[in-house]
């Protein structure tokens, strides 16, 4: 079995296990059992509870699903935007192409982390947890497209001068029809960009959350749970605090594995 296929199967199993953990009766990521704060492992709480008495296993499962769904959606938006901008720059008028690439250069010159922090901190004070999650991943998607667009632009320029494209032009194919044929030719570029973006977005969300600027409570997120590592009193009570970090590393290795052979 190839590394990529193995990583994909592993991720699928993890997602199914997370969905099963969330479907257990009385499973709630926000329910606080104040009589069982920082509880150890038990049949009811397989990974113990946090300092508010919330089931850590359910929270990790929810964080895994939220992070994967959000990152995949953000990567899809990024890839679609990059395909649009890259193709437009390659096939549009020269001025449009130049402007699009200049815009890419401007975005690439802006450091991700600082921009993310800036946009995230400039959200209204009353933002709900669901909105904060959506905005976090949307901002990641909005800032992630330029590098991908540059790669797509180079690929599209190569396609523009390729034999089949010249032939298609000479035979009078409509530009819309050419786009239909162009996209499958760009797929070998777009798929790796999409796969590489997913772990990058998962890490970015985790870093933002660990700084207290990610998805708001009570919604669980990797970053939010990494934030628990700063609580040394909790670390003395239970080692299960490291469980989210260990799982995050495993998930990221699997995601890198899916992107490695692309």
């Amino acid at each position, binding site marked *: 079995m190839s590394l990529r296929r193995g990583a994909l199967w592993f991720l699928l199993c993890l997602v199914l296990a997370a969905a099963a953990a969330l479907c257990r009766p009385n499973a709630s990521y926000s329910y606080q059992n104040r009589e069982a704060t920082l509880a150890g492992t038990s049949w009811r709480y397989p990974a113990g509870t946090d300092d508010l008495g919330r089931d850590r296993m359910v929270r990790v499962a929810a964080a895994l699903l939220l992070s994967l769904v959000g990152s995949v959606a953000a990567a899809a938006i990024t890839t679609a935007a990059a395909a649009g901008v890259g193709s437009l720059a390659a096939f549009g008028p020269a001025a449009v192409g130049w402007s699009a690439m200049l815009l890419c250069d401007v975005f690439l010159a802006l450091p991700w982390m600082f921009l993310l922090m800036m946009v995230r901190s400039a959200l209204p004070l009353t933002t709900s947890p669901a909105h904060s999650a959506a905005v976090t991943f949307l901002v990641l998607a909005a800032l992630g497209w330029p590098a991908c667009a540059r790669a797509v632009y180079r690929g599209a320029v190569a396609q523009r001068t390729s034999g089949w494209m010249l032939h298609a032009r000479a035979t009078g194919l409509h530009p819309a029809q050419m786009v239909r044929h162009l996209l499958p030719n760009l797929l070998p570029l777009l798929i790796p960009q999409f796969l590489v973006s997913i772990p990058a977005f998962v890490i970015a969300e*985790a870093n933002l959350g660990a700084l207290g600027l990610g998805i708001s409570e009570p919604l669980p997120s990797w970053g939010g749970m990494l934030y628990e590592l700063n609580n040394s009193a909790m670390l003395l009570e239970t080692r299960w605090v490291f469980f989210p*970090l260990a799982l995050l590393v495993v998930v990221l290795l699997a995601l*890198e594995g899916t992107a490695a052979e692309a």
Partner: protein
Amino acid sequence: MILLVMVGTTLLVRFAPGYLSDAREMDARYAAVARAELSAEASHSITQMLRAELGGWMRGDSGVSREFNVPVWVLIRPRLAVSGRLLLRGIALAWALALCASLLSSAGRRPSLLWQAPAAILLAVPAAALATLCLLVNSGGPVLVMALLLAARDFKFLHRALRNAWLDPHVLQARAQGVRPRHLLRAHILPALLPQLGALASLSIVTALSALVPIEVIFNVPGLGELAWNAAINRDLPVLLAVTMIMAVGVTCASFGSHRTTAWREA
């Protein structure tokens, strides 16, 4: 380019949905002042704001901090040296680690798991988590954490580039003729890799700037990253804007340096 980056950053902040809200509004003592300042800012058009912001920067005036009520430059100046030192040391150590590891791993016949596995694991650990773990086990400081994060990324590229370089036909022939590897490296491989090394150096700076915030926050280093984080938590947008612009200028200069290296090499 730098001008465009400044315009882009200012516009992003201006159009952020919470631009006209301030953490001081939640405190009854400062709410009235904050609202007055915000309503004055709201009355400015985008053009006025851009003119004021860019004009201020040209004159060396980067605005006033909303949180501390002091000029932003006063907050930034002492922290520039702290962050600069951390970045320089981190990048230098990372390059030394990555170069040594990639030279050793690329010279072997097969890609060695001994080198690949630690790099892959380090790439899968968020900067904040690695910094927290180092702090918990009380070993390694901010420089080591930054160096490890950068070295893992740099190693990935350097290993691939060096491995391809060792397999170039002229290098293979030289090896077959008995030319010593050290001479090959110095005379053929490293000069040929110079443009890629330049590009990787600018990428290292971008990565280091992104890792700067979590590392400085977790190790409590009084640098620009910590200032930016504090500004983000307290919605002190003038400070955040100024720090972002400084970082953007740093990235632009690094990219320019990388382009110049490539141009010099091609000339």
